[in-house]
């Protein structure tokens, strides 16, 4: 237990509560473990534990997408529809972190849900859609994100989504219409997809449309061609004649959002967007080496065939080191951004801020060479 008290002020500290005292005894009885390590064995979702969730259901949406219902730990602080959550998933035993939108409003059963579209070659999304089973555990962080509807909800809304961009929006819609007195907002949803078969929540959205709760405009690339937002005859203004009276929320790939931003700016309209950060896993095969930056500000130009440890030391950076042959783990440092190559087998390790572990991906500097620019927290 560490509390930040200045020397001399400890005497004025209130006496520890019974709970604190018990915890201190328990801690002394299980050292070098912490009490939480022991409690985790029995109740990983309890209050006070690191935030986790247990998968309670996996519902297929299309062939390549599924909704995952998760019971979060007791310390889950709730969310507003439209927000996203970072989850840590063990794929083939290795923990990988990704961000997904929450696709329900707060649910009566206290569970949260996210809908995942399996991206071709996407390690985590493929795993979540095709290989997760109820009972498995996930690591969670608290919900985040400013892509939420204002309160009170405006009278007229335009929602523009493409592909899995529907995921934060479906959360908003479900929340609006699950209330005892459904919202009286006039909503137009322009839902863009490659084809009918690939459209997530197609039937649910059509049902909302049939009930008259939303005006659903479906656009399929294979039927209608790619949506040109600014086109005078087939663009957004043609699809939504009263566009200028609506507050617009949009979520989808960067190309669509860029076009929308330009379009709305020209018309002087307000627009709120949510951008999914792409998982940057470009082919780094051609690159050799790169600049390695350290937390203290030093910058080292590292060759692609030289261990970062050697390159950094040659440049005068004080590095932790050990065996220098990849076995002792004495040199492990967190990679915050960029990619490194294992000199032994060529394997790449990539860190993407906002995607991979916020504390960095630990790498052995003695056998890792820079594969492009990277930044190390040291």
């Amino acid at each position, binding site marked *: 237990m560490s509390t930040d008290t200045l020397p001399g002020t400890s005497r004025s500290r209130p006496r520890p509560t019974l709970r604190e005292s018990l915890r201190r005894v328990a801690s002394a009885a299980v050292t070098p473990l912490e009490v939480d390590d022991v409690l985790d064995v029995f109740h990983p979702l309890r209050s006070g534990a690191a935030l986790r969730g247990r998968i309670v259901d996996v519902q297929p949406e299309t062939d390549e997408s599924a909704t995952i219902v998760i019971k979060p730990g007791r310390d889950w602080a709730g969310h507003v529809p439209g927000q996203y959550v970072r989850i840590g998933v063990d794929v083939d035993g290795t923990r990988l972190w990704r961000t997904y939108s929450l696709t329900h409003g707060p649910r009566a059963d206290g569970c949260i849900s996210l809908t995942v579209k399996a991206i071709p070659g996407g390690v985590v999304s493929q795993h979540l859609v095709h290989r997760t089973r109820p009972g498995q555990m996930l690591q969670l962080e608290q919900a985040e994100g400013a892509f939420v509807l204002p309160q009170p909800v405006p009278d007229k809304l335009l929602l523009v989504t493409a592909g899995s961009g529907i995921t934060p929006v479906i959360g908003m819609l479900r929340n609006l219409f699950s209330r005892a007195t459904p919202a009286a907002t006039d909503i137009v949803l322009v839902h863009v997809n490659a084809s009918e078969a690939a459209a997530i929540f197609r039937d649910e959205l059509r049902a909302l449309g049939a009930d008259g709760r939303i005006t659903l405009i479906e656009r399929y690339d294979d039927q209608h061609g790619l949506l040109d937002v600014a086109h005078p005859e087939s663009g957004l203004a043609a699809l939504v004649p009263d566009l200028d009276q609506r507050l617009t929320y949009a979520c989808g790939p960067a190309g669509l959002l860029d076009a929308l931003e330009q379009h709305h700016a020209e018309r002087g309209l307000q627009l709120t967007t949510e951008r999914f950060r792409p998982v940057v896993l470009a082919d780094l095969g051609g690159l050799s080496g790169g600049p390695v930056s350290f937390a203290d500000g030093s910058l080292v130009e590292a060759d692609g065939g030289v261990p970062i440890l050697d390159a950094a030391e040659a440049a005068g950076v004080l590095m932790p080191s050990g065996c220098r042959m990849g*076995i002792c783990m004495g040199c492990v440092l967190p990679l915050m951004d960029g990619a490194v190559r294992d000199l032994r087998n060529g394997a790449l390790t990539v860190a993407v801020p906002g995607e991979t572990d916020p504390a960095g991906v630990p790498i052995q500097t003695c056998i890792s060479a820079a594969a492009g620019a990277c930044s190390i927290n040291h």
Partner: protein
Amino acid sequence: MTVINKKPNNPIENLTPEDVEQIGIELDAIRQDVLDSRGEKDAAYIRRVVGVQRKLELGSRAVLLVSILPPAWVLGTAGLSVAKILENMEIGHNVMHGQWDWMRDPKIHSTTWEWDNASTAEAWKHSHNEVHHTYTNIVGKDNDLGYGIMRVDEDQKWHPMYLAQPLWNFLNACFFEYGIAAYDLELGKNLRIPKEKRSEVFKRNTKSTLAKIRKQASKDYVVNPLLALPTGSLLPTLAANVTANLVRNLWTHSVIMCGHFPEGVETFERKSIDPNETRGDWYVRQMLGSANISGSKGMHLMTGNLSHQIEHHLFPDLPSSRYAEVAPRVKAIFARYDLNYHEASLPAQVYSAWHKVVRLSLPNGFLATTTVKNAPEQAKLLWAMSTKGSKVRRAAQARLQQQARKLEVAKAA
């Protein structure tokens, strides 16, 4: 035993540099196969072992709360002993090697793990992972080999103080966790340095080790016994903790002695190691400097798979649960290059290691030339060698070696 390059039939003399390189390539291929297939099953394995260990330890400590009842004492003590052994061997040692770092789980990671032992994880990782695994069996560089205080090689000059080394080794076994902490701190070397000249690193490590020992000791010898006080089980619980630590110490000491100490395991001379030692050279040194223990699955688990010491030294960062699987392939490489894959049962290896401790506690050739018949004269000789100064010692030593050589020639004929 003597260092490998002074042996008449040096087993690596027949290996060409190309052979050594080829061995390196073949072992790298085995390593890569495990890396490629490492995954969910392995992660599930280590999580299961950690879960079982925690439940066992907690359950045993719960039973010990009523250890005033003899069956509870026996059950709780046995469970706690096993739990401590599992924690140190299959979990702690292997996690700190980084065998499970690929899971990227901060709860099971070499940089965050702290183990149930007197030595701190940090000090252990330096002296064990870095020094021992890099300089395996190099006389004068590998502390594991000599423990700094023993005569481990014929070439080391005999001195009467070595007569006490079997006793010393036994005491070290009983208090092994403190022995480890002491040599992780290089206590012997550092205590000889005047206090004001000792390094900051040493001072800092000593402080953290003492803090850890204090926490460890209060857990086992104060807090848990006090928790058992209401049922009148304070003393039995204290005894149970002492016993469990003793059992763990004796067991880990035996396993570790078996890894590098049995007769026939090679040691290396500092001068003979090429400063530009290739990966193949390093592999060969690991192959010849380690010994395996054969046995059941349960035995492998309780040794933390250090029963696959050879595989562990070749691939210290591969999951321990995979050593059994790669062992036949490793063994085949030994066979192909006519190298000795040193493997025997636990009793045989423990006996062999202890035999060496005893043999080297005596002057070279002494044990070989002693029979039941000449025992009284031999005892007299040893007394003289121990008490009458270095001149007598030298002369007697020369005679002993001559006799031993004659015996050997006679045996060969």
